């Protein structure tokens, strides 16, 4: 009895103190911080690498921390926080990254041997990059390093390959590529595409690369759907008009055009060790 009273006394004392303190020392905060804080376990364990649940909540609201940073809270907490932050996977059309260059070691010519930091940006500073094609893939993997989902890997012939299942369409690889070779397209396997990024004249292209688009317009003339147009010296296929007839593939002397399906199949058949590397 006495014990209960004493305990109650101490409890009441601190409760009062805390209540008063909370009132006198109240600080205005973003209501979302409070909400996120509520969703957290409150163990203040520090496993998120922030100084306590409050700090983590602030970081989440400020956009510095990921919503699934709370290890003790697990999935439930993560989804609760995601709901507060409104980060539900929205109604946005899912997209996938494609590499618009087929000029690998076998097909594209190098101007010289580059020896130095293996980084596309920095390699490009030396005489504009070692590839004869100034728009072709350098294959030093900036995109691979930029991908947070391990969806990109460097293929055996020096071109990056996209694992479409893992690709979230975030576009980080698009930003990472100094030559703007990677583009996002709506998910799907419909249509044909010109797998080249070269804006050069035909002569320059054919000197630099066996599979580059020279802008010869053979495909434009061949397409019954009039889906192919020219963007400078580069043929561009309108996916909405393309009906996969494949006439352009036959007409292209350089083999720059392939159905999109092939890219998907290629990524599915990717050897497993590439993923773990």
């Amino acid at each position, binding site marked *: 009895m006495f014990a209960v009273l004493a305990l109650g006394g101490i409890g009441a004392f*601190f409760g009062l103190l*805390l209540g008063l303190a909370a009132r006198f020392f109240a600080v205005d905060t973003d209501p979302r911080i409070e909400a996120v804080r509520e969703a957290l*376990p409150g163990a203040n364990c520090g496993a998120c690498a922030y100084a306590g649940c409050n700090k983590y909540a602030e970081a989440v609201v400020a956009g510095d921390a990921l919503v699934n940073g709370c290890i*003790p809270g697990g999935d*439930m907490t993560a989804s609760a926080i995601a709901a507060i932050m409104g980060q539900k996977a929205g109604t946005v059309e899912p997209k996938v990254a494609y590499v618009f260059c087929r000029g690998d070691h076998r097909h594209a010519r190098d101007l010289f041997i580059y020896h130095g930091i293996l980084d596309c940006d920095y390699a490009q500073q030396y005489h504009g990059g070692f590839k004869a094609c100034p728009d072709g893939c350098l294959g030093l993997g900036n995109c691979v390093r930029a991908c947070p989902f391990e969806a990109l890997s460097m293929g055996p012939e020096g071109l990056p390959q996209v694992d479409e299942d893992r690709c979230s369409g975030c576009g980080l690889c698009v930003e990472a590529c100094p030559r703007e070779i990677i583009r996002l397209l709506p998910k799907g396997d419909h249509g044909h595409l010109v797998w080249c990024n070269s804006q050069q004249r035909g002569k320059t292209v054919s000197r630099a690369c066996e599979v580059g688009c020279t802008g010869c317009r053979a495909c434009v003339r061949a397409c019954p759907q009039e889906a192919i147009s020219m963007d400078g010296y580069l043929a561009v296929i309108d996916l909405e008009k393309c009906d996969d007839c494949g006439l352009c593939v036959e007409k292209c002397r350089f083999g720059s055009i392939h159905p999109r399906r092939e890219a998907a199949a290629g990524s599915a058949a990717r050897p497993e060790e590439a993923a773990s590397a």
Partner: protein
Amino acid sequence: MMNNLYLADITRGIFKENPIFRLVLGMCPTLAITVLVKNGLGMGLAVIAVLTCSNVVISSLRRFIPEQVRIPCYIVIIATFVTIIEMVLQAFVPALYDALGVFVPLIVVNCIILGRAEAFAGKQPVLRSLFDGIGSGLGFTLGLLLLSLVREVFGSGTLLAETNFAVQLFGANFEPMRIFAQPAGAFIVLGLLLALTNIVFKRLQID
């Protein structure tokens, strides 16, 4: 259907959200008392008891505890059960109580218990909280057993020492690798086990 839910509550604590290997919580007792399997088992059981009881009580009181003071309330509830366990241990297995030392009262601040209270028991019905408590406790115990097994076998060359089932494993001339019984060994073994479970979980595709 319902059974599956409860089953999930239990297995989640053991595998997917194993307190030691996945959540990395409650490290202090994990490292400190796992010299012998006996101690690990004792600590594990104590934690199961406290965790289950506190989860049940907190869950059943969850509508009555005011939001603002819930943490202090949880702590009081947990501390009460820990005190009870402490007294029970002291009364019935004094040797174990001595071996565990100050880490028995320190169960109070074991992040798992407060963590489960906040993350689960404070929001879920009583029965699910019960199973969640058992599951997390079992997961914790499992981790302790694994760690103490390694440390005892290599560090002392025995199995289940100081119990009725004690076995001397490698004969009398065996010189145990005593580092396993030292604090340094605890850190290293746990680190390696953690890496091992990381590999296993990755192979099994459990995220």
